[in-house]
């Protein structure tokens, strides 16, 4: 019955046999801990439903990502489930249009142009992201508190043309408005890169000297680069905050050299995207009936400081998170 159904009603939603589903996870590369853990989370989910995840990486190269997606969609797409991290906002549109045309189930994360809405599509099940403004503000506030609400800070921005970089910086600006004692001495981009952050921070430290009381970094990699720069400059009085909760940052928070970070749960992201798509493909979720809040949402995130860092020290996936009834448990709110 089942197999018959899937072959005849190939265009229809939710008619796939669980064993026919093909799971694909695509991230930039496997050479950074966050994205590697994302793919591991995807593997964990795939294993829990007796499947294998196809791991794709595109080296942070937009064209290569499109090329892979196009090639993927040129194959068998009826029961294809994709959990994709688009390289930038611009890359989401063609992915969505391509998947929709080919009839593949798609979950995207992080990047999406504001005017593109999953609710307008049948097979684009969900878009998941974290509230960058909120996280930027949370760590901004934590930084302000750590320097006693008074003093100069410098900001390290991410890749300038990404929404994440812009939102997080907007969060910092909101935080600055709330903390009038804190002044932004300088902002420079270090392109989310640890090595660039090291050089930029060293230069900014010489430029502003002792006025620098804190460093706000748009991700943990840059925060860690800044920490190295501080170490080399022999400065231990500067507070550093970042976002992403990569293992090294958690260690740094544990040993007190870093002040705060915000969790974005890589393994969960890698699993949940596939889980949502899988549930839609097998018919356990009816895409049309999903509330708008579940089609595009901010996921829950947590500010991590030395008070709660122990809870996050070992990243793990919880299989129950991925059950079809629970997949939307971490919805924190609609995209604003």
């Amino acid at each position, binding site marked *: 019955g089942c197999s018959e159904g899937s072959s005849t009603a190939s265009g229809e939603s939710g008619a796939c046999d669980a064993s026919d589903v093909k799971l694909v996870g695509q991230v930039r590369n496997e050479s950074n801990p966050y994205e590697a853990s994302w793919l591991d989370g995807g593997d964990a989910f795939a294993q829990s439903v007796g499947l294998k995840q196809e791991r794709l990486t595109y080296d942070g190269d*937009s064209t290569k990502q499109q090329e*892979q997606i196009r090639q993927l969609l040129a*194959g068998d797409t009826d029961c294809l489930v994709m959990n994709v991290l688009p390289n930038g906002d611009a890359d989401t549109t063609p992915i969505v249009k391509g998947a929709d045309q080919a009839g593949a189930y798609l979950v995207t994360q992080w990047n999406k142009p504001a005017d593109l809405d999953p609710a307008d599509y049948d097979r684009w099940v969900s878009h998941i992201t974290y509230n960058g403004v909120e996280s930027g503000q949370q760590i901004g506030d934590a930084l302000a508190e750590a320097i006693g609400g008074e003093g100069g800070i410098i900001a390290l921005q991410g890749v300038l043309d990404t929404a994440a970089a812009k939102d997080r910086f907007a969060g910092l600006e909101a935080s600055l408005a709330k903390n009038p004692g804190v002044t932004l001495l300088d902002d420079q981009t270090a392109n989310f890169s640890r090595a660039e952050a090291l050089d930029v921070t060293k230069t900014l430290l010489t430029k502003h000297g002792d006025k620098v009381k804190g460093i706000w970094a748009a991700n943990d990699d840059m925060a860690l680069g800044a920490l190295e720069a501080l170490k080399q400059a022999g400065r231990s009085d500067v507070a550093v905050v970042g976002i992403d909760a990569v293992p090294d940052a958690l260690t740094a928070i544990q040993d007190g050299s870093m002040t705060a970070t915000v969790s974005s749960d890589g393994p969960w992201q890698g699993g949940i995207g596939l889980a949502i798509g899988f549930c839609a493909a097998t018919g356990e979720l009816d895409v049309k009936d999903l509330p708008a809040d579940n089609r595009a949402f901010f996921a829950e995130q947590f500010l991590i400081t030395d008070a709660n860092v122990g809870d996050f020290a070992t990243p793990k996936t919880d299989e129950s998170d991925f059950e079809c009834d629970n997949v939307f448990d971490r919805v924190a709110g609609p995209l604003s």
Partner: protein
Amino acid sequence: MSVTVEQAAESVVQPKGRSVSERLTALMPLIALAAILAALTVADPGFFTQRSLTAATMTAAPLIVLAAGATLVVLCGGIDLSIAAMASLSTVFLALWLPDLGALTTPAVIGVAALLGAVQGVAHVYLRIPSFIVTLGGMSIFSAVALVVSDAGTVPVTDDSTISWLNLYVARYIPMSVAVALLVVAVLALVVRLTPLRSWITATGYSESAARLAGAPVDLVKIGAFCVSGACAGLAAVMLVSRNFSGNPSMADNLLLPAVAAIVVGGTAITGGHGGLWRSVAGALVVTLLRVGLPIVGVPSAYEQILYGAIIVAAVALTLDRSKVMVIK
């Protein structure tokens, strides 16, 4: 198909034909292409389907155009490192101007890109700066301009009616962008082959001083090559926008090394003089197959890079006609 500039000359003057080995070296880019296709098919039989191959050629279209344009510069003995940044900048211009200029946007963007290319050519020729440096500088300048005019963000295209024709198909199976790419290459190749340009370009590439002392318009030829290279980058940008529905200041940046690789894999000598436009088409297809094919047939990411590196070197070992290249540097 892979008649190169050089061999075209010989077929004109030597109707008796070429020796077997010469024919074979001319075919090498195609042989390399077939070999890689065969290997990928063995690894995953699902790869050798009409849909999959169509998708691969469509993917290759902008790369073909970029590589073909830059091939002219390479034939003249220079190199154009700005093509990718130029294409990125052009995507931003295209997305920004589409609402106002409508159907005129495409020619306008290509024109501007050609102009920027020519400016680099002029700087190279008259300021005597190595093309490597001029275009490296051009690369960062174009990126900065793109970042500023786009306000460091994606510029969405809401009404893509004037460029969406690039997403249609010719004769049902051939993507329009591929047809356009091949047409552009064919026109360029014909112009080069049938006019004195062939002599001038080849002479400039092999021995610039001899060409100059023979009164060949070396400066003009070089500026022209940069100009065409820029125009091709503009056209590649149109293709990219038509499929991405937006412009972005770094959209094509990662196509630089693949484009240069395509030229070299095609068998064009990086030192200038020997090579041809059709060779770059074959090269672009080889590079595309490697870029998309390896991950799709399931090679893990780390091994994919190692394989890519090894295969691409092997491909060049196969395609380069060493009798035409005096020293391999």
